[in-house]
Protein backbone atom coordinates (compact mmCIF):
# COMPACT_ATOMS: atom_id res chain seq x y z
CA UNK A 1 0.00 0.00 0.00
CA UNK A 2 1.28 3.47 -0.88
CA UNK A 3 -1.53 5.30 0.89
CA UNK A 4 -2.79 5.17 4.46
CA UNK A 5 -5.82 2.87 4.38
CA UNK A 6 -8.05 5.35 6.25
CA UNK A 7 -7.24 8.09 3.74
CA UNK A 8 -7.83 5.69 0.84
CA UNK A 9 -11.16 4.64 2.37
CA UNK A 10 -12.27 8.27 2.74
CA UNK A 11 -11.34 9.03 -0.86
CA UNK A 12 -13.23 5.91 -1.96
CA UNK A 13 -16.35 7.08 -0.07
CA UNK A 14 -16.19 10.51 -1.73
CA UNK A 15 -16.02 8.94 -5.19
CA UNK A 16 -18.93 6.60 -4.42
CA UNK A 17 -20.99 9.54 -3.10
CA UNK A 18 -20.46 11.41 -6.37
CA UNK A 19 -21.58 8.37 -8.37
CA UNK A 20 -24.69 8.04 -6.18
CA UNK A 21 -25.51 11.73 -6.69
CA UNK A 22 -25.41 11.24 -10.46
CA UNK A 23 -26.93 7.75 -10.56
CA UNK A 24 -29.93 8.84 -12.66
CA UNK A 25 -27.74 10.51 -15.30
CA UNK A 26 -25.41 7.50 -15.38
CA UNK A 27 -28.34 5.10 -15.85
CA UNK A 28 -29.62 7.23 -18.72
CA UNK A 29 -26.27 6.60 -20.39
CA UNK A 30 -26.41 2.84 -19.75
CA UNK A 31 -24.36 2.57 -16.55
CA UNK A 32 -25.55 0.93 -13.32
CA UNK A 33 -23.42 0.79 -10.17
CA UNK A 34 -23.85 -2.83 -9.08
CA UNK A 35 -21.69 -2.93 -5.97
CA UNK A 36 -19.31 -0.64 -4.11
CA UNK A 37 -17.20 -2.24 -1.41
CA UNK A 38 -13.83 -0.74 -0.58
CA UNK A 39 -11.67 -0.71 -2.67
CA UNK A 40 -13.85 -2.04 -5.53
CA UNK A 41 -16.67 -0.46 -7.54
CA UNK A 42 -18.48 -2.81 -9.91
CA UNK A 43 -20.61 -1.28 -12.66
CA UNK A 44 -22.64 -2.86 -15.43
CA UNK A 45 -22.63 -1.17 -18.83
CA UNK A 46 -25.58 -1.81 -21.11
CA UNK A 47 -25.00 -1.08 -24.82
CA UNK A 48 -27.85 0.85 -26.42
CA UNK A 49 -27.13 1.05 -30.15
CA UNK A 50 -29.05 -1.47 -32.25
CA UNK A 51 -27.21 -4.14 -34.19
CA UNK A 52 -26.71 -3.18 -37.80
CA UNK A 53 -26.83 -5.88 -40.44
CA UNK A 54 -24.39 -4.96 -43.21
CA UNK A 55 -25.22 -6.48 -46.59
CA UNK A 56 -22.76 -6.09 -49.48
CA UNK A 57 -24.57 -4.71 -52.54
CA UNK A 58 -23.31 -3.79 -55.98
CA UNK A 59 -23.18 -0.04 -56.56
CA UNK A 60 -22.80 1.75 -59.93
CA UNK A 61 -19.38 0.84 -61.32
CA UNK A 62 -16.70 3.50 -60.99
CA UNK A 63 -13.64 3.96 -63.20
CA UNK A 64 -12.01 0.99 -61.45
CA UNK A 65 -14.83 -1.45 -62.28
CA UNK A 66 -17.43 -3.07 -59.99
CA UNK A 67 -18.08 -1.24 -56.76
CA UNK A 68 -19.37 -3.01 -53.64
CA UNK A 69 -20.85 -1.02 -50.77
CA UNK A 70 -22.21 -2.21 -47.41
CA UNK A 71 -25.91 -1.45 -47.07
CA UNK A 72 -26.81 -0.69 -43.42
CA UNK A 73 -29.92 -2.35 -42.00
CA UNK A 74 -30.52 -1.60 -38.31
CA UNK A 75 -32.17 -4.35 -36.26
CA UNK A 76 -33.82 -2.24 -33.54
CA UNK A 77 -34.64 -5.05 -31.08
CA UNK A 78 -31.07 -6.44 -30.94
CA UNK A 79 -28.04 -4.89 -29.28
CA UNK A 80 -24.67 -6.02 -27.90
CA UNK A 81 -24.42 -7.91 -24.63
CA UNK A 82 -24.04 -6.02 -21.34
CA UNK A 83 -20.63 -6.26 -19.68
CA UNK A 84 -19.17 -5.49 -16.28
CA UNK A 85 -16.41 -3.05 -15.42
CA UNK A 86 -14.52 -3.39 -12.15
CA UNK A 87 -12.83 -0.23 -10.90
CA UNK A 88 -10.13 -0.81 -8.30
CA UNK A 89 -9.37 2.12 -6.00
CA UNK A 90 -6.64 0.59 -3.87
CA UNK A 91 -4.08 3.36 -3.26
CA UNK A 92 -6.32 5.92 -5.04
CA UNK A 93 -5.31 8.61 -5.77
CA UNK A 94 -1.61 7.90 -5.37
CA UNK A 95 -2.21 5.39 -8.17
CA UNK A 96 -4.76 5.75 -10.96
CA UNK A 97 -7.96 3.67 -10.76
CA UNK A 98 -7.56 0.18 -12.16
CA UNK A 99 -10.12 -0.87 -14.80
CA UNK A 100 -10.89 -4.43 -15.85
CA UNK A 101 -13.69 -5.90 -17.96
CA UNK A 102 -15.83 -8.59 -16.36
CA UNK A 103 -18.57 -11.08 -17.10
CA UNK A 104 -21.57 -9.47 -15.33
CA UNK A 105 -22.91 -12.91 -14.30
CA UNK A 106 -19.78 -14.26 -12.63
CA UNK A 107 -17.54 -11.14 -12.38
CA UNK A 108 -14.67 -13.23 -13.77
CA UNK A 109 -12.32 -11.26 -16.09
CA UNK A 110 -13.39 -11.24 -19.73
CA UNK A 111 -10.74 -12.03 -22.24
CA UNK A 112 -10.67 -11.76 -25.99
CA UNK A 113 -9.63 -15.38 -26.51
CA UNK A 114 -12.90 -16.75 -25.10
CA UNK A 115 -15.09 -13.72 -25.83
CA UNK A 116 -13.94 -12.29 -29.15
CA UNK A 117 -15.66 -9.07 -30.17
CA UNK A 118 -17.91 -9.00 -27.08
CA UNK A 119 -17.04 -5.33 -26.53
CA UNK A 120 -14.77 -2.68 -27.94
CA UNK A 121 -13.78 0.95 -27.48
CA UNK A 122 -12.95 3.89 -29.74
CA UNK A 123 -11.66 7.40 -29.22
CA UNK A 124 -11.85 10.35 -31.62
CA UNK A 125 -8.43 11.95 -31.85
CA UNK A 126 -7.55 15.56 -32.72
CA UNK A 127 -7.55 14.73 -36.45
CA UNK A 128 -11.10 13.31 -36.07
CA UNK A 129 -9.86 9.75 -36.62
CA UNK A 130 -11.49 6.83 -34.84
CA UNK A 131 -8.74 5.17 -32.85
CA UNK A 132 -9.30 1.77 -31.17
CA UNK A 133 -8.51 2.06 -27.46
CA UNK A 134 -9.32 -1.44 -26.26
CA UNK A 135 -6.05 -3.31 -26.60
CA UNK A 136 -4.37 -6.37 -25.10
CA UNK A 137 -2.11 -5.57 -22.15
CA UNK A 138 1.41 -6.99 -22.62
CA UNK A 139 1.64 -8.18 -18.99
CA UNK A 140 -1.86 -9.38 -18.05
CA UNK A 141 -2.74 -10.45 -21.64
CA UNK A 142 -6.23 -9.13 -20.88
CA UNK A 143 -8.11 -6.36 -22.72
CA UNK A 144 -7.46 -2.92 -21.25
CA UNK A 145 -8.42 0.64 -22.09
CA UNK A 146 -5.40 2.51 -23.38
CA UNK A 147 -6.55 5.88 -22.03
CA UNK A 148 -5.24 8.46 -19.59
CA UNK A 149 -6.74 8.20 -16.12
CA UNK A 150 -6.48 4.40 -16.05
CA UNK A 151 -3.82 2.50 -14.10
CA UNK A 152 -3.25 -0.05 -16.86
CA UNK A 153 -2.35 2.87 -19.18
CA UNK A 154 -0.11 4.84 -16.80
CA UNK A 155 1.73 1.71 -15.62
CA UNK A 156 2.04 0.30 -19.16
CA UNK A 157 5.71 -0.04 -20.21
CA UNK A 158 5.08 2.25 -23.24
CA UNK A 159 3.52 5.07 -21.20
CA UNK A 160 6.00 5.57 -18.40
CA UNK A 161 6.54 9.15 -19.65
CA UNK A 162 2.88 10.08 -19.12
CA UNK A 163 2.66 9.83 -15.36
CA UNK A 164 -0.66 9.68 -13.49
CA UNK A 165 0.59 12.44 -11.18
CA UNK A 166 0.28 14.92 -14.09
CA UNK A 167 -3.50 14.37 -14.18
CA UNK A 168 -4.70 13.07 -10.84
CA UNK A 169 -5.92 16.46 -9.55
CA UNK A 170 -8.26 16.78 -12.52
CA UNK A 171 -9.65 13.27 -12.74
CA UNK A 172 -12.33 11.41 -10.80
CA UNK A 173 -14.13 8.08 -11.01
CA UNK A 174 -17.18 9.92 -12.37
CA UNK A 175 -15.03 11.44 -15.16
CA UNK A 176 -13.44 8.03 -15.76
CA UNK A 177 -16.87 6.42 -16.17
CA UNK A 178 -17.90 9.19 -18.58
CA UNK A 179 -14.84 8.43 -20.69
CA UNK A 180 -15.52 4.67 -20.61
CA UNK A 181 -19.17 5.25 -21.60
CA UNK A 182 -18.05 7.52 -24.42
CA UNK A 183 -15.49 5.01 -25.75
CA UNK A 184 -17.27 1.68 -25.17
CA UNK A 185 -20.98 2.53 -25.46
CA UNK A 186 -21.59 5.76 -27.38
CA UNK A 187 -18.97 5.17 -30.09
CA UNK A 188 -19.48 1.46 -30.74
CA UNK A 189 -21.90 -0.02 -33.26
CA UNK A 190 -22.42 -3.80 -33.07
CA UNK A 191 -22.44 -5.06 -36.64
CA UNK A 192 -23.15 -8.31 -38.45
CA UNK A 193 -21.61 -8.48 -41.90
CA UNK A 194 -22.84 -10.99 -44.48
CA UNK A 195 -19.78 -12.60 -46.06
CA UNK A 196 -20.57 -15.27 -48.67
CA UNK A 197 -22.48 -17.92 -46.75
CA UNK A 198 -21.23 -16.77 -43.33
CA UNK A 199 -21.75 -13.84 -40.99
CA UNK A 200 -18.94 -11.90 -39.31
CA UNK A 201 -19.59 -10.08 -36.05
CA UNK A 202 -17.77 -6.83 -35.37
CA UNK A 203 -17.92 -3.90 -32.97
CA UNK A 204 -17.40 -1.07 -35.43
CA UNK A 205 -16.78 2.61 -34.62
CA UNK A 206 -19.79 4.93 -34.81
CA UNK A 207 -20.15 8.71 -34.78
Amino acid at each position, binding site marked *: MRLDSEVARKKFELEVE*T*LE*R*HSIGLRQ*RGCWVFKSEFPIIDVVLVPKHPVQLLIPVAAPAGPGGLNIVLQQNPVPFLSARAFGVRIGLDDFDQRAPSVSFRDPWTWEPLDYATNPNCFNGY*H*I*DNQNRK*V*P*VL*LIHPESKLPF*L*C*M*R*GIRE*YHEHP*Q*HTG*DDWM*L*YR*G*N*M*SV*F*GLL*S*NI*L*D*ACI*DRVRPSLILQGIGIACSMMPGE
Partner: protein
Amino acid sequence: MSKEYDERHEHHEHHEHKEHHKHHEHKITIIFRINGEDVRVEANPNSPLLSAISKALAESGNTGRPPEEWGAYKQGSPLDPKATIEELGLSDGVLIELTLKVAAGG
Protein backbone atom coordinates in the same frame (compact mmCIF):
# COMPACT_ATOMS: atom_id res chain seq x y z
CA MET B 1 -36.41 70.96 -37.93
CA SER B 2 -39.76 70.47 -36.27
CA LYS B 3 -40.17 69.63 -32.61
CA GLU B 4 -42.05 66.46 -33.63
CA TYR B 5 -39.04 65.30 -35.74
CA ASP B 6 -36.63 65.96 -32.86
CA GLU B 7 -38.76 63.94 -30.46
CA ARG B 8 -39.09 61.03 -32.87
CA HIS B 9 -35.36 61.09 -33.64
CA GLU B 10 -34.50 61.16 -29.95
CA HIS B 11 -36.88 58.28 -29.27
CA HIS B 12 -35.36 56.24 -32.16
CA GLU B 13 -31.79 56.84 -30.95
CA HIS B 14 -32.76 55.91 -27.41
CA HIS B 15 -34.39 52.68 -28.65
CA GLU B 16 -31.35 51.79 -30.81
CA HIS B 17 -29.01 52.47 -27.90
CA LYS B 18 -31.10 50.24 -25.63
CA GLU B 19 -31.13 47.41 -28.20
CA HIS B 20 -27.39 47.77 -28.76
CA HIS B 21 -26.80 47.75 -25.02
CA LYS B 22 -29.09 44.72 -24.58
CA HIS B 23 -27.23 42.81 -27.32
CA HIS B 24 -23.93 43.26 -25.51
CA GLU B 25 -25.28 42.75 -22.00
CA HIS B 26 -27.35 39.61 -22.69
CA LYS B 27 -25.68 36.67 -21.01
CA ILE B 28 -26.67 33.09 -20.42
CA THR B 29 -25.82 30.69 -17.62
CA ILE B 30 -23.98 27.51 -18.53
CA ILE B 31 -23.74 24.68 -16.01
CA PHE B 32 -20.47 22.80 -16.40
CA ARG B 33 -20.27 19.38 -14.77
CA ILE B 34 -16.60 18.71 -13.93
CA ASN B 35 -15.76 15.41 -12.23
CA GLY B 36 -19.31 15.26 -10.89
CA GLU B 37 -19.36 18.81 -9.47
CA ASP B 38 -21.54 21.50 -11.08
CA VAL B 39 -20.12 24.96 -11.77
CA ARG B 40 -22.36 27.80 -13.03
CA VAL B 41 -20.77 30.31 -15.36
CA GLU B 42 -22.26 33.40 -17.00
CA ALA B 43 -21.27 33.64 -20.65
CA ASN B 44 -21.75 35.98 -23.58
CA PRO B 45 -23.39 34.14 -26.50
CA ASN B 46 -21.01 35.85 -28.94
CA SER B 47 -17.90 34.50 -27.22
CA PRO B 48 -16.30 31.12 -27.98
CA LEU B 49 -17.25 28.25 -25.69
CA LEU B 50 -13.57 27.93 -24.74
CA SER B 51 -13.70 31.20 -22.79
CA ALA B 52 -16.57 29.89 -20.65
CA ILE B 53 -14.70 26.58 -20.22
CA SER B 54 -11.61 28.46 -19.01
CA LYS B 55 -13.74 30.39 -16.51
CA ALA B 56 -15.41 27.22 -15.20
CA LEU B 57 -12.09 25.42 -14.78
CA ALA B 58 -10.57 28.39 -12.96
CA GLU B 59 -13.59 28.78 -10.64
CA SER B 60 -13.61 25.08 -9.78
CA GLY B 61 -9.86 24.93 -9.16
CA ASN B 62 -9.23 22.54 -12.07
CA THR B 63 -6.16 24.39 -13.23
CA GLY B 64 -3.72 21.49 -13.45
CA ARG B 65 -4.17 21.08 -17.21
CA PRO B 66 -4.78 23.78 -19.87
CA PRO B 67 -8.41 24.38 -21.00
CA GLU B 68 -7.56 23.07 -24.49
CA GLU B 69 -6.99 19.60 -22.98
CA TRP B 70 -10.62 19.35 -21.79
CA GLY B 71 -13.41 17.95 -23.93
CA ALA B 72 -16.93 19.45 -23.76
CA TYR B 73 -20.00 17.24 -24.23
CA LYS B 74 -23.71 18.00 -24.38
CA GLN B 75 -25.76 14.85 -23.76
CA GLY B 76 -22.77 12.77 -24.84
CA SER B 77 -22.13 14.70 -28.09
CA PRO B 78 -18.82 16.56 -28.39
CA LEU B 79 -18.89 20.35 -28.83
CA ASP B 80 -16.35 22.46 -30.75
CA PRO B 81 -14.83 24.77 -28.10
CA LYS B 82 -13.73 27.28 -30.77
CA ALA B 83 -17.32 27.86 -31.93
CA THR B 84 -19.33 30.61 -30.26
CA ILE B 85 -22.05 29.74 -27.75
CA GLU B 86 -24.63 31.15 -30.18
CA GLU B 87 -23.27 29.07 -33.09
CA LEU B 88 -23.54 25.95 -30.93
CA GLY B 89 -27.17 26.82 -30.18
CA LEU B 90 -26.64 26.63 -26.41
CA SER B 91 -29.49 28.05 -24.37
CA ASP B 92 -29.71 29.45 -20.85
CA GLY B 93 -29.23 26.76 -18.19
CA VAL B 94 -27.66 24.20 -20.56
CA LEU B 95 -25.66 21.39 -18.93
CA ILE B 96 -22.22 20.65 -20.40
CA GLU B 97 -19.92 17.95 -19.15
CA LEU B 98 -16.18 18.60 -19.16
CA THR B 99 -13.72 15.71 -19.08
CA LEU B 100 -9.98 15.70 -19.49
CA LYS B 101 -9.10 14.40 -22.96
CA VAL B 102 -7.70 10.90 -22.78
CA ALA B 103 -5.22 11.03 -25.71
CA ALA B 104 -5.62 7.34 -26.15
CA GLY B 105 -4.81 4.35 -28.27
CA GLY B 106 -1.03 4.47 -28.45
